[in-house]
């Protein structure tokens, strides 16, 4: 798989609501479209997105064929402690792409 853009505030106050934005590079091929040869292009989509914050799942989503290429997912969580956010995208072949970001909470 390819690369992702992640926007997490580097610093935050304890208890503050923070917005996290992720943009994943992925074709999200539905599996319903015929290619130039008339054959269906095999499905290639991200099926699951999970974000953990210091090991605890704070957001997860299931993705389906109607979702755009390069899906942009934005959500909020509460800054509890300094640590790492781990983002993982799993596609329908079972391959997982993982990226991390760190946050400092004062």
């Amino acid at each position: 798989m390819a690369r992702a853009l992640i926007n997490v505030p580097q610093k935050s106050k304890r208890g503050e609501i923070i917005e996290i934005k992720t943009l994943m590079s992925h074709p999200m091929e539905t599996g319903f479209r015929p290619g130039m040869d008339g054959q269906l292009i095999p499905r290639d989509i991200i099926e699951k997105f999970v974000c953990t914050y210091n090991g605890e799942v704070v957001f997860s989503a299931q993705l389906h064929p109607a979702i755009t290429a390069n899906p942009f997912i934005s959500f909020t969580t509460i800054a509890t402690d300094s640590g790492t956010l781990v983002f993982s995208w799993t596609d329908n072949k079972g391959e997982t792409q993982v990226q991390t970001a760190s946050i400092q909470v004062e």
Partner: protein
Amino acid sequence: MNRLAYLVVIGIALPAFAQDARKSGFDFMGPDTQAMQKDDLANPGMLSVLEGEALWKANAGTSQKSCASCHDDATQSIKGVAARYPAFDETTQAPLDLAGRIIQCRTERQGAPAPQREGRELLALTSYVAHQSRDLPIAPPKDARLASTRAQGAALYSTRMGQLNFSCAQCHDDNAGGHLGAAPIPQAHPTGYPLYRLEWQALGSLQRRFRNCLSGMRAEPIAAGSKEAIALELFLMERAAGIHLETPAVRP
């Protein structure tokens, strides 16, 4: 002679007048699309720019040299380059677009296989190179050898073609600011290419946009990298001279 002098005066006065009325396609977009373009962490075109950056630094071909081996730091060395293309190429003695120049560099200087037009690799490299000229004004070269091709592009722009018998100018000059179906009609200034089109779900070149428009007009699409495509690009860049580049743009 008097009449000729009069025409020359109009010729000088008109572009100055038109300058105020010229707008990038960005100004025709909705606030959502504009916001998506402005935020580098939400702009999907930036994914290609990042990929291009990695390719810029990676060794390729038989020379085992990267783009950076010769051009060094792209943020300095190729700033403003995209604003000058298409330019006249000394080796082929013909106008060459930016993608064409990258193909030439790849094959002749790096000894790598020619990247495919509209392919992922070439789009990524082109968007990375063009991104270095973001916020710089389009500055077409004053090379006299480009004049004939540019005139050819101008003629193509105002020629009616296809089953619908439209010319580019009928939409983009006469009806710019209006709508075609639900889609706004911009003034056709190539300010953000390669750009991310939500309709394509991908990054695409200006020449893909030409094919898109031409097939909409039921005209024969011009091939990527063809003489006609470069002529039209030359003319459009001249027409947009001074407008700032915004690669990678986002359009609906």
